[in-house]
């Protein structure tokens, strides 16, 4: 959260963008810890479908979220082409399984627009801003809504 706050105060924001089922998403780069290649995750029993399982991140147990499923799209295959973005929000870390990482974008905060309020689509509650870069629409994810613990606590 502190990282996000920091970037909120500055005029410019840096986003890490990635592809997910032919759509482009992004997260604030300040919350990204590292990017890893695909490793098989150990499935967790009784977990919601979007929780892919846990992986070993240098000795710590890291839950991995299949972002695609989380956003209501078909699950990511899970092979060598996929990557896991390790993010941290507050004290919580998690891996986001995505198709591929595409770019790092630096743009003025003023170019971020709130998404239109027609949230029939589940994915919209996870998107907290939209922006257009080179004619492509980039969705900025709200990580606190995406991470698994929120769901576990709510359930």
């Amino acid at each position, binding site marked *: 959260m502190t990282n996000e706050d920091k970037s909120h105060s500055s005029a410019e924001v840096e986003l890490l963008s990635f592809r997910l089922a032919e759509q482009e998403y992004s997260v604030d780069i300040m919350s990204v810890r590292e990017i890893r290649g695909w490793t098989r995750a*150990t499935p967790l029993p*009784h977990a919601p479908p979007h929780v892919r399982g846990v992986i070993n991140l240098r000795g*710590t147990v890291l839950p991995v979220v299949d972002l695609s499923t989380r956003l209501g799209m078909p699950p990511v295959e899970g092979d060598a082409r996929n990557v896991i973005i390790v993010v941290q929000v507050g004290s919580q870390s998690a891996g986001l399984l995505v198709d591929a990482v595409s770019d790092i974008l630096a743009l003025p905060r003023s170019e971020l627009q709130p998404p239109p309020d027609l949230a029939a689509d589940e994915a919209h509650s996870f998107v907290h801003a939209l922006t257009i870069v080179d004619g492509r629409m980039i969705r900025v994810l709200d990580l606190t809504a995406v991470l698994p613990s929120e769901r576990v606590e709510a359930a």
Partner: protein
Amino acid sequence: MSDPMAEIRASFFVECEELLESLQDALNVIDEGAHDNETINVVFRAVHSIKGGAGAFGLTALVNFAHRYETVMDEVRSGKMEVTNEATKLFFQAADLLQDHVRAARDGGDEPAGAEEVLCALEALMGGPKIEQDAEDEVSDFVPMGLSLDLDFGGDDAAGPDGGIDEEPAWSIRFRPQPGLYASGNEAFHILRALQGLGEATVECDTSGLPAFGALDPEAPALAWTVTLRGDVDEAQIREVFDFVEDVCTIEIERLAGGGGAPALPGLPGLPGLPDLPDLPDLSALPAAGPEEDEAPAAQMEMPVAPATGSAPAPAPAAAAAPAPQAPAAAAKSGGGEAASATVRVDLDRIDRLVNLVGELVINQAMLAQSVAEAGLPPNSSVMTGLEAFMMLTRDIQDSVMMIRAQPVKPLFQRMARIVREASAAVNKEVRLKTEGEATEVDKTVIERLADPLTHMIRNAVDHGLESSEKRVAAGKPSEGVITLSAQHRSGRVVIEVKDDGGGINREKVLEKAISKGLVPEDAQLSDAEIDNLLFLPGFSTAAEVSNLSGRGVGMDVVKSAITSLGGRITITSEAGVGTTFSISLPLTLAVLDGMVVHVAGETLVVPLSAIVETATLMEEDIRSLGPNTNVIHIRGGFVPLYDLGAELGYRHPKDSYVGDIVLLTTQEDGSRAALVVDAIHEQRQVVIKGLQQSYGHIPGVAAATILGDGQIALILDPPDLVRSASGRTRNAA
């Protein structure tokens, strides 16, 4: 780290805890009937040291309390007051209150209530408000001297009276800075402080060089100092202090004839060799020496006045005379004891980091072993033998690191002693707590998390376990009830027992109650053990009437779940008229676990070895269906429910037939059994526990995770939880 004061303060409180512990120990010894001077001295010294430290930090409330306590102990020490049972009880209460005071001072809480009553009771025992008067005076005298009291923490006690001040050389050092001294970044204050570090120093400031204010050059030195230094120092050592300033100041070092011949009065004019010190006789002028010097003279002023009472600023001089010779001897003794078991205080975080790193090492070693095995090297190759040695070393390191985290249960037991005192007072019973195996070491986390359940069990034992004094006497037992708290290592686990010599569990009443609460069917035929275990059921409370002690809405079920969450088990044995014993068995550590690595539906799982009773291969005649969705197996003359791990965990659909499959027979705290179907048993090994709670949250049936040799994560099962959360779901999952 940034605030040195905070650090000193923190270490003062750590010290307080240790002193409180030794205080409790000594009181226990006294309670057992030993009234020797040495023990009473320990009590006195502990209270005194706390008072001293508290004075230095300006903790007035603590100082006042400790002071009055100390005054009473001093009376005892000087033999003016007798140690009766009543007095001992009050000593204990006062010690508890002292602890509360320390905690309040540390955490900024409120002062504990009831302090005044206990103190008044103590002082009444001691007799006479006159001493009370003394006490008040002493307090006010005492506070301004605060800093000098750090002497009490070191060996200075011993050095004071018999340190042979008289034989030590004394030096007079005149030190006058020249302009260059301050310009070159030196500071007279530091030099004076360094001199103080060499021995007992009396510093005087010579202000004669001070010009009129108008003529004052702010950058030029105007003050000079005369330091009278006593101690085992030679001139070279003194010169060394001035090493860096030699050329920018004037130094005169003189050896005083007769050494500290007049140690009590260093300010007397007749000191030879110091003819040119007009200020010397006037000690009262010292505080004028400059703001930075305030502390030093204050500290020094006390020393000459009371060199022999370093450890005993007793109110009555007559009393001081007697204890003085004992104090140094005692201090020397305890000093010797400490040297024998030298300890280092280490931040817990660092140890945890080490534990984690060793955990990594274990995983890494397993990975290495696996890849060597995969490389197909012959078993007698040097790599293999080297790896084996590596494995042994890793295991040794792991054990040693776990030892660091282990702590004796003694402080925990001491807390329980207090609970017994308070609880027995609340229900008006005479209770004595006996402790055994206080030195038994358990993981620090286990100890911390054991405090609450143990407190509850002790309260229960006092309230429900022991009968009232009248009933005890009627039953031919001594009126004083005994609760025994013991700890011991038993086959890789720690067993802690809470035993009372009360009336035992009234099984009829328990059963009746359970039936009336609808916890068991009315016609249930239960064995004694089963009835005893009813106590652990949620919603069960044995107290017929709710006393102000128990019955706070917390039952034995909470105790049980707390113990279970520590990987422990709790059992009851009870005999009518003889007593009840609760026995807690705990793992030595929470960081590693012996587990059986099994495969289920392509996944690797770890089942804690402690839960497994036996393994078996299922024969057709073993399996019996019980309704459409449930199977039981017939084993060792009993029927045990069958759970398919793969299905329970959602890895696969239940199979049609389990014939030929391997089952793990597990047992739970209540003795009930369950059979878990697995595909294969891989190996049995020690695994490092990695919590899931923080990163993900609780998963039903899963205790934690671990990292296997191939770097993959495997889940560690919690069989009782699995059975609980899965009951009946085995076949329905499909």
